[in-house]
């Protein structure tokens, strides 16, 4: 079985530690990850802004990168969902469209892969902290990732999960939205961070580095000490420490 990691630009360039945590967790389950080096970006920034020709250009690199993989695993629900748009993007190119369908069917977000494919919910992690969870919109609403992270968090010993008020509300990232409509996006992320503060959690955990970068950036700007982590990092740290 060939399992490939789709690292996504953010985790590649800014948060390689997330990819590393993911690789270590999977290796402990006996999964040997591959990293096809031709991969780049899923094309979402261009797609969402309406530049579909540009999106197709980068989408092609993803299609070719994972052609002979049996599974593709990604630390982002949003980038995973972007692959679901490929079928439509390549509707005039039957061969690429066929590849797009295959890729969509075999691509999983990290927690989906652990729970749905490997059937694992308890990694033997120990993380004695107060944690709150932000469900990112694309992962939870569009891919339907709701239970998987909960199961994994419940499997962590010592972890105290506190509910985040208005958890389902978008953090205001939205890609170019955060730049184009900076003040609206700023109001949204400020409110999200306010709610996180209300929980008095030490750690905010999530499944998408784009949203987490947005929220962490606001918390840090305001001097809030909340630690922001991808669930893969939390699990890996819990196993190492625990």
């Amino acid at each position, binding site marked *: 079985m060939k399992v490939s990691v789709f690292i996504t630009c953010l985790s590649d360039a800014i948060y390689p530690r997330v990819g590393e945590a993911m690789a270590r967790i999977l*290796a402990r389950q006996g999964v040997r990850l591959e*990293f096809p080096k031709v991969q780049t970006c899923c094309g979402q920034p261009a797609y969402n802004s309406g530049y579909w020709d540009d999106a197709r250009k980068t989408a092609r690199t993803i299609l070719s990168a994972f052609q002979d993989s049996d599974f593709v695993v990604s630390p982002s629900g949003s980038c995973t969902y972007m692959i679901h748009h490929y079928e439509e993007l390549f509707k005039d190119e039957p061969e690429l469209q066929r590849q797009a369908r295959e890729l969509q069917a075999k691509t999983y977000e990290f927690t989906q892969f652990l729970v749905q494919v490997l059937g694992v919910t308890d990694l033997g992690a120990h993380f004695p902290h107060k944690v709150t969870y932000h469900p990112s919109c694309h992962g939870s609403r569009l891919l339907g990732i709701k239970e998987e992270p909960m199961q994994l968090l419940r499997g962590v010993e010592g972890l105290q999960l506190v509910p985040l008020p208005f958890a389902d509300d978008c953090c205001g990232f939205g890609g170019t939205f955060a730049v184009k409509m900076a003040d609206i996006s700023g109001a949204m992320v400020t409110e999200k961070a306010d709610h996180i503060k209300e929980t008095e959690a030490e750690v905010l955990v999530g499944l998408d580095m784009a949203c987490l970068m947005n929220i962490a950036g606001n918390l840090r700007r305001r001097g809030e000490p909340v630690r922001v982590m991808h669930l893969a990092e939390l699990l890996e740290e819990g196993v190492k420490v625990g």
Partner: protein
Amino acid sequence: MSVRTEQKGTNAPASTTAESLDRAAGRQITDFLAGDDIAAGTGTGVAEHGRSGEKVRKASAHPRPSAQPDTVRERAGLALNDEFLRKAVKFTTERLRNGKLEASESHGNWDIWREQGRQIRLHTIAHLDYYLNLFADNARLNGVHVHFAATAEEAVSLSLAIAESVGARTVVKSKSMVTEELHLNHALESIDVEAIETDLGEYIIQLAGETPSHIIIPAIHKNRYQIAELLSADAGETLSPDTTILAGYVRRKLREKFLEADIGMTGCNFAIAETGSMVLFENEGNARMVTTVPKTQITLMGMERIIPSWEDLEVMATLLPRSATGQRLTVYMSGISGPRRESDADGPEEMHIIILDNGRSNQLGDPEFQELLNCIRCGACLNACPVYRHIGGHAYGGTYSGPIGAVLTPALKSNVAEWDDIASASSLCGACYEACPVKIPLHDMLVSLRRRKVEAGRGNPLETIGMKGFSTVAGNAKLMGVALKMGRIGQRLIARKGVISTRIGPLKGWNTYRVTPTLAEQPFRERWATLEEELSAGLREMNPAMKRRMEEKARESREAAQRKGDGGH
């Protein structure tokens, strides 16, 4: 075809209506009056709202929205700096969406009904010409004058001609977004006909000389202190900011207006093709008064309001109130099939229905936007929207606001290029789609709007160049590696303690609210070789059950892709 006996008035004579109105006013109106704010209820209210006091005009002045800035960014800026508006909008949208969640959960089979609702709307819109004709034929058999208006101007002229033909001096109106779309009050005033809004929220908005900022709760952006101030100016005496007192004042005032009015004007929630009937949902009882007291009734409806049968109404009557306000049913639901018959206790002698196109038929046959016509105007997408929550409705710049307005306004006008800045005011979070009782994929439509603008060559020039650059670099792993290296060198100039916090240059907008993380010293693609070596050295044997499970999943995924491909051809 037999015409049902849901004739107006037969089971709701005027006297009962008035009593029910009183009851409803106490219980329901105050629930959904406006964006109330308990936190502001600590005595600061009225005095601090002098600004809105200056805006008070007579009910006869209902200007078009003109003073608004041109761009959504500027309009949003106004809203974001208006603490009262933001508090009011948050307060009421929260109540509405929580109500909707409870009502849909308590229903038990919400998703099944939602899918049924969607199917009814899809079917009707796919055969809209047939059902429209059926509706018109049946309504005419019932004695209704049915008119078709291709444009807003035609609908306005038809309305004015009817008003002139009956020598009308005053019109009482129940809530209608279509008449807002037509700026009909303004037009009526131009021929000296006074138009009086009788929905409480609309009445307030009319007094303020504003337009509705929500399709269900027109005055959602005002709190009760602001409303008390407006109504006090109207009454010529100080009314206390108690919602029951305020509603009571308006009720007394409107009762006179109902009795003098020459025309009752309504919108239409659903039009039933099989009997040519129209159905109104409301909480205040004012629509009953509007459709029973005046001698002439004019109903304005968008051409997509049709559903085939009364049976379909059962589904809609379940979806609409629960989605709109979290009510299981609205206080009043009136089915009206024509003018007053001999046996009726009340009702108009003359009834007109004006069916409006105004850009709707442009969506027919458009695979990306046809589903817009499925909308039942429940407002759930506004209440769920995190952008609407912060900027309210006026920032959208059109008659319809929120996610549905952001798509509907440019779609109806077919001028995507001019309007699409509003399509950019969304994070594409999908909350609208999740909330929508008929599952309209508004988040996808917003992307389609953006794409059409780009395809028309009307994209922002800087963004166009940026995207070209992005796709060139991100379309090639080697170039991306080089770009990352350059970025790492470049960032040394501006990074401090692992973050970039400057608010100058392109990072200004982002960094006003955040700091930016720096690029990692070693990106994943460079780190991989050593990591892979280390991991494969210590790799564990996978347990056989897991291995079988994986193989099974891999097979399933191949088959799923295959099936999808077969189905697609």
